[in-house]
């Protein structure tokens, strides 16, 4: 009787382990923290890409509309794939697209914009990656949606795709 009970416990334990590891196999191994509560946008000062003038975050996000902040770099390949979708999003009048040029060479970045088009109403320079950390980003590309109350309400890690564009359009409608 005791042996049977032991065997039963071992089988239950092993099946439990199997289920846990089997489920774990399907999980993505890149961690994305949930934005549980809406976060305020960081207060910062950053150089403008075109004019080289320092701008205050209050001035950048002063309009009463949705803002989409996209972190990009000319050396980042996924940024190229998402660029046409950003061009599509830039046509939307209910939001402004702000670009954050991440650890990039200015000349290369300008070439990139000239070649693929400029979807951004404003581009900020983030040479040290500090601004991206202030936004809570990991790297490039990454996209944030900021609502009219100047809160970050959504974050998309990695390049955006058509599905995400539809989601964004629904949010900023």
């Amino acid at each position, binding site marked *: 009787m005791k042996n049977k009970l032991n065997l039963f416990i071992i089988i239950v334990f092993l099946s439990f382990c199997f289920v846990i590891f089997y489920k774990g196999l399907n999980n993505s*191994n*890149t*961690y994305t*923290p*949930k934005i549980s509560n809406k*976060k305020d946008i960081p207060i910062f000062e950053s150089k403008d890409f075109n004019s080289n003038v320092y701008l205050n975050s209050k001035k950048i996000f002063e309009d009463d509309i949705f803002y989409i902040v996209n972190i990009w770099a000319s050396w980042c390949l996924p940024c190229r794939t998402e660029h046409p979708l950003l061009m599509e999003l830039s046509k939307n009048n209910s939001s402004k697209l702000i670009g954050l040029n991440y*650890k990039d060479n200015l000349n290369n970045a300008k070439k990139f914009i000239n070649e693929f088009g400029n979807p951004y109403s404003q581009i900020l320079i983030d040479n*040290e*990656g*500090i601004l*991206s*950390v*202030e*936004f*809570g980003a*990991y*790297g490039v590309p990454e996209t944030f949606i900021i609502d009219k109350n100047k809160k970050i309400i959504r974050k998309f890690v990695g390049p955006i795709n058509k599905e995400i564009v539809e989601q964004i359009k629904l949010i900023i409608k």
Partner: protein
Amino acid sequence: MKILKIFIIVFLVTGFFELKSEEKNNELKNEILKNIRCLICQGQSVYDSESDFASSIKLIVDKKINKGLNEEEIYDFLREKYGDWVIYNPQLNKNTYILWLLPLLLFFLGGAIIYKKTLKKKK
């Protein structure tokens, strides 16, 4: 001549103290960096990593220390941006209490089993 001597002594003393405080700051910085998880690398702390993410975090921690923030304030800043996961040593809160209390519970449970067994053997 005397003035020059005094000037040199003052210069050396201030230089020494500056060097000391810089060393202290560096120690604190390394201690903090070793406790921050590099979120885009697997199983590496920011201290060990050379990734872009890690280098930005290193810069930010350096800036925050120079601003006068203490260790806990820097962890709070990073926690706010990236969640509890970014710190290797998680805080005790409603999301992590199982993590902290389960080993303790298992320890006592094991202790109780061993105690009971030895008591049985003695009998």
